[in-house]
């Protein structure tokens, strides 16, 4: 991993603070993400990991600080703008359409790429059909990539959890993202499913050159696949660096293992 090369900073988080009423979820957090790297955000429960992701994603508006994406600084963004800039995400508690097939679920990820107006799409006129075929082709490549061909027509709700997670990833990939935010991609998985998911994450990073920001609980996984790690605790950043540096950071050890006072 040490020989990997990274590009410029694509995502720069500067002094972000977020609070809900009196509760401070994030305090003065800064870190950056370089192109092509796999960047992990870890921390104990309630450390503010998901809040951090939601800020990047535009779901939450931080009270202080700014996020710079590819050189452009934003103070307020909404999720659609973020998506249009090429940031896709998956969800901790799966937000798939349970009654829809795998294929349709992933097709929804192509939403932003469909430019025909509603009328054309409704009656399947020429341009709409061509567009549909083009997008379907792209989705098929994702299905192939994620090895979920046997489930194309299966309603997502009927599938095992590990596979649903894969569909969730597929939908995010359908957006052809530059940056992919993964919220606990391995949560609730068994060892084999975790291994599969690790391989897919590494492959996405490798084959498509996608920059990946992931939140994860499983330390083993994080240390294995991440290039750099940010550690949060009680909404504050307590560590930042390569997995090895983080592993030997006293503050991190204290936060994870506890100390005697």
């Amino acid at each position: 991993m040490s020989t990997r090369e990274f590009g410029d900073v694509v995502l720069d988080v500067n002094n972000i603070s977020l609070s809900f009423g009196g509760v401070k979820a994030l305090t003065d957090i800064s870190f950056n993400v370089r192109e092509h790297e796999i960047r992990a955000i870890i921390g104990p429960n309630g450390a503010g990991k998901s809040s951090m992701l939601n800020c990047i994603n535009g779901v939450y508006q931080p009270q202080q600080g700014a996020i710079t994406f590819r050189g452009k600084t934003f103070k307020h963004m909404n999720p659609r703008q973020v998506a249009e800039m090429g940031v896709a995400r998956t969800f901790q508690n799966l937000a798939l359409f349970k009654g829809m097939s795998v294929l349709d679920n992933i097709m929804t990820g192509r939403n932003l790429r469909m430019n025909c107006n509603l009328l054309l799409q409704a009656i399947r006129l020429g341009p709409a059909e061509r567009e549909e075929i083009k997008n379907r082709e792209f989705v098929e490549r994702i299905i192939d990539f994620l090895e979920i061909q046997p489930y194309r027509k299966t309603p997502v709700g009927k599938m095992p959890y590990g596979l649903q997670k894969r569909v969730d990833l597929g939908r995010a990939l359908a957006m052809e993202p530059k940056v992919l935010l993964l919220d606990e991609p391995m949560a609730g998985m068994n060892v084999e499913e975790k291994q599969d998911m690790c391989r897919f994450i590494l492959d996405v990073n490798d084959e498509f050159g996608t920059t990946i920001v992931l939140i994860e609980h499983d330390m083993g996984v994080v240390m294995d696949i991440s290039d750099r790690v940010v550690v949060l605790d009680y909404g504050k950043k307590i560590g930042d660096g390569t997995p090895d540096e983080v592993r030997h950071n006293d503050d991190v050890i204290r936060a994870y293992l506890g100390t005697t006072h």
Partner: protein
Amino acid sequence: MSTTFPRLLCEHAAQRPNAPALREKEYGIWQTLSWLQLAKMVQALSAGLALAGLKRGQHIVVVGENRPRLYASMLAAQSLGAIPVPLYQDAAAAEFVFPLNNAEIAFAIVEDQEQVDKMLELREKCPQLAKIWFDDPRGLRKYDEPGLASLDALIETGQAHVAKYPREFIEQVERTQPDDVAAMFFTSGTTGNPKGVVHTHFTLTNRGRAGASFDRLTSDEEVLAYLPPAWIGQNIFSYSQWLVCGYVVNCPESSATVMIDLKEIGPSYYFAPPSVFEGLLTSVMIRMEDAGAVKRWLFHRFMDVARRIGPKRMDGAALGLGERLLYALGNIVIYGPLRNTLGLSRVRVAYTAGEAIGPDLFTFYRAIGVNLKQLYGSTETAVFVCMQPDNEARSDTVGIPCEGVELQVAASGEILIRSPGLLKGYYKNAVATDEVLSPEGWYRTGDAGFVDASGHLKIIDRAKDVGRLSGGPYDGAMFAPKYVENKLKFFPYIKEAVAFGDKRDRVCVFINIDFNAVGNWAEKRNLPYAGYTDLAQKPEVYALIKDCIEKVNADLASDDKLCGSQVSRFLVLHKELDADDGEMTRTRKVRRGYIGDKYGVLIDALYDGKDSQYIETQVKFEDGRTGMVAADLKISDAKVFEAVKEAA
């Protein structure tokens, strides 16, 4: 008329250039490759291989699932007069060492990253392995190994060469003669190192043609290629006969989608070992048990009708009007939809071979209108030796000798064969060749059997496995372990059985339960279990298996010769027998001797009359790591019946 595979390819490409040759489902769509496109690809590949240094008479391994470009690679090698050696794609890397060194193989064409990893792992033990090409580049972008390249790159260099020297290909094809070696297949072998079976263009095309004329196959057939290409059966059905007849071979999207693809393609010519037919039936039965009451009633009602009328109908017997109407109704309500679900709607000829097939299983398919038949053959005979004609299929025979085959039963009961499709020999193994091939051209099959009154060949067991009991009430009685095991395996709950009894006073068996079937059975009875090992040791499961065994015993008791083979004690093994642990061959045949050594303590416990035995076993996972499985195995007695003396 004798020919070679590359010549057949050129003929198809010239005569019907736009007819489909291969299809592969990719990105959700069946992508077609016409004969002309295929010929062009083969031409480019062969030029690329020649430039890379592949010479006439050299061997090249091909490892992977059924993929159009791997088929094209085999044709390309054969065009140059080189010899493709297909190997099993699910074998562990270590199993490749012997074939690679035995045939001094320097070139490999493999499917994907998994196979590339195996080949790279072997480089230390097989230093001659210079070039490796891969079909699917996924995950291989960062690999920087000497001699490793993609098939795309190989085709590209080949194309550039072809543009300059377009005649070279046809000259090479002309130089290859029918009696040149076409391919080598390593037999799995239940003992010792595998042996390379050498076949020429003549032997393979001759047998392909014999089989095709027996069933009047045409270029309109559709075949789904889903079994390992390293197995001669798959090679004959989707390679030799494909080129001989010129029909369409369809490659599934992945091994997990075979059932879906089967339904979409609806093959007209179908081949599967009994285990596949059994798997299909089990899946139907499990789904039927979960169906609503009305459907279930309808299914059972009409399946009774089918079992009564269907086989007669298949045998071409005259049916009464009532029977015909009833069957026609069943066909609309049950059989038709069922055949469609199984992907067998359009099947004109279906074959099973390799293992004995249970009478119930065999009857089921014939009853619902699938023309399922049996054939007899092996790697050494290029498959076709005996085949069952339409209307004459039986579950306990393997048919009549087909075109060109002479058959003889030796005094020992072993079946001898003379056929144009016999192997040229075992590669670099004259001793083994002389053992099986007599100077007069008779091949010793190693199977014991006889020809019955209707002229059909009947196989009992491997000749060397037929043993004798010694001591006890049936001293000296014949013991055919496979015969007993097969009878047991015909029960859906029993996946594998291993019988012991040679030179012992009675017969004992190891049982492997069928995890799906028994698991479903347990769930229906609210019987909780934690996994295979736990389920296998449940007293209820022992009672279930005991019941099966006693039925077999009752059946054996009525057979004069075999009543000594009744099973007196048994145990259910704590793990599934697996080829990765060396307990079975890659074609899923149990290696009785190996199992006997490995589980010696269990056999002793069976014969010593113990009630249970503790055992620890090492298991090998697919990625080569190992783990331990330990269990305290129960041992149970089964009721043995008095011999039923036939009235004199």
